[in-house]
């Protein structure tokens, strides 16, 4: 991996920092967020890695970090983070950038009819809000 000043000071990083309101540099990669993440198994990759990718200025990798779609914003990570860095907000920022860029992992017409019938409104509204721009 090649590092450079430009890469570490990109406007993309600035944008993530602004949108999330979090200080990316504050993370010292202790992994406590990953250790407590209830959906880490489904993600298949440790969520604290998102912050590391950002610290290294890896825009492309950060934007391909698909675990963001699996963050349920449960704030377990935030509640235990020793550095007061809210990973859920960083995940949301990455998600929003991709949603605004036209990516979306969920398409309303493809959602299972049975789920739409059974699931409570809250779940459906939340899912759409998080996954559809």
């Amino acid at each position, binding site marked *: 991996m090649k590092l450079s000043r430009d890469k570490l000071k990109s406007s993309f990083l600035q944008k993530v920092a602004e949108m999330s309101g979090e200080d990316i540099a504050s993370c010292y990669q*202790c*992994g406590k967020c*990953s*250790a407590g*993440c209830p959906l880490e198994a489904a993600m298949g990759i440790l969520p604290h890695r998102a912050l590391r990718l950002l610290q290294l200025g890896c825009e492309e990798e950060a934007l391909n970090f698909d675990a963001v779609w699996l963050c349920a914003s449960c704030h377990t990570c935030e509640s235990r983070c*020793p550095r*007061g860095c809210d990973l859920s907000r960083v995940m949301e920022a990455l998600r929003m950038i991709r949603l605004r860029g036209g990516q979306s992992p969920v398409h309303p017409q493809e959602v299972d009819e049975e789920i739409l019938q059974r699931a409570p409104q809250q779940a459906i509204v939340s899912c759409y809000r998080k996954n559809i721009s």
Partner: protein
Amino acid sequence: MRRIGVFVCSCGLNIAGRVDVQKVTDAAAGIPGVVHSENYKYMCSEPGQNLIADAIRQKRLDGLVVAACSPAMHELTFRSAAKLAGLNPYMVQMANIREHCSWVHRDEEQATAKATDIVRAAVEKVRRDQPLEPTRIPLTKKALVIGGGIAGMQSALDIADAGYDVVLVEKDATIGGRMAQLSETFPTLDCASCILTPKMAEVARHPRIQLAMCSRVTQVAGYVGNFTVQITQAPTYVDWEKCIGCMDCQERCPSRLPSEFDRGLGKRKAIGVDFPQAVPNRPVIKADHCLYLQKGRCGICEKICPVEAVDFQQQEKVWEEEVGAIIVATGFDVLGAEAFAEYGYGQYPDVIDSLAYERLNSSSGPTEGVIRRPSDGEIPKEVVFIQCAGSRDPDKGKAYCSKICCMYTAKHATLYRHKVPDGQAYIFYMDIRAGGKGYEEFVQRAVEQDGALYLRGRVSRVYEEDGKIVVKGVDTLAGENIEIAADLVVLASAVTPRTGARELAQVLKVPADQDGFYNEAHPKLRPVETVTAGVYLAGAVAGPRDIPEAVANASGAAAKVAVLFSNDELENEPLIAAVDESKCSGCLWCVPVCPFDAIEEKELIERVGSKEVTRPVATVNAGLCQGCGACSVACRDGAMNLKGFTNEQILAEVEALCLMTGSPE
């Protein structure tokens, strides 16, 4: 009219490279009252100082301005030089034209103009200086040491060996402190008791050390050399003078309670000692658990005591000691249960802190040194150690590194393997900080020889399931979450100041940081002193320390006390506040702003017409005043002033600086 001399230093090219030194010298010569002005390459050198001395004598100078570097650098140098030449050292002012001028400005003209202004302000200041003499105060050559742990004991021994009396105040019934709770010590694995107990005995029998056990320092008045300290001793309910230490009472006492010394893992009796090697080896009664004191029945100890030492009527005792210096060595605590909800501390018996683990390891501990888990007494086969439990956690715990945990956790894992050869120790860590002699090697031995498995990451959750303690953490090096079903979990809880340290800091008027650790007078150059003259620090009271550091500290503080006591009188800095009684209205609004309680009320007798009347005025205790000047600003009528920084002087400096040289009007 003062006869002022101005000496401008070129400091090689440090000043002359940017400031036209000759121009400054010439400008200074033009200031009224300046009768001598010259410059030299290195004013602080011996020839430079001689130059000054000669001018003082030849030109009968009574005020000096040395335009050179920061007063922090050479004020003392030039004051001493002036004194040698017969001039009162307080008639010297430095004009800082190096750090504040030549080093920070590029434009030579501007820098020269500024240097001229700075010199002029210093001339105006020195013009209003008065010769000052340090006050001399006698001192009591007896020291108070607060805390009987390893640091306090070391300090007490060093001072006592130097030939001065020491009062050692300890809040518990035994000296020894935290170190007495430890099993072995890193990195040599010496048995803590083996090296500590001889020292405890030495303290106890030293003729110059007076022990005040079960005691606290509740008030401190006075100042360096002359403190009056109030000591409050809790009742022990046993007359230690009579007691012969047979411990029959402890044997027969029917009431048991969890032993605080054993971190709640073992039991002790309501009467007795914390541990068999306690010094002094005298029992105390824990009133809350004594059947007689609580319910009025039992009294077995009183009946069986062969020397009738048990005294249920004993009361709290309060007395005063006069001392000349105070060493604070109150040591540390570890963060309590409330900090670790996600780790289940306080909820699951098999989640313990490091001090409890020390007790499990100790041959005098509740399991006699066999590692048994608290819940069922089984020998744990898998033990998880969690480092940084509350440390390096600015959000939920403490921002700082507790410093000693890396080392003692390696020690714990090593000792564990020695005692449970088929067991496995896991250590969650963030970074290994092993910066001491033999420390890194010790950690590596734990890994290589004793099979400790280090996992780089934090633990998020600890919970009980099927009789196991499930630890969910992460190993960021592997990029995997880790789950371990352990038998015992040990938290390396953050080191904090002793409970009550903050209150004591207020009693002593010593500043503490946001975490409650006491501030050193200077973190690098005056690490065992505080800003309150005569109060010194030893050990973990100023921050997490390991044993060798605490001992080195303690000896350092003791040396400071010995140096202090080598004087028969103390010289007090004369730059202190003073009251003009004729102006003082006696409102005493200066009193609440004084951080050192140095201002008192005094009755002034005055004549009004033919009668004598008294009125209150403020008066400054020269021993207590540290010269901050807060009182002089609280004073509306201008009666309170600060010597060396008087209202007249500061107003004159303002005027001088506002007459900027070289700025076109």
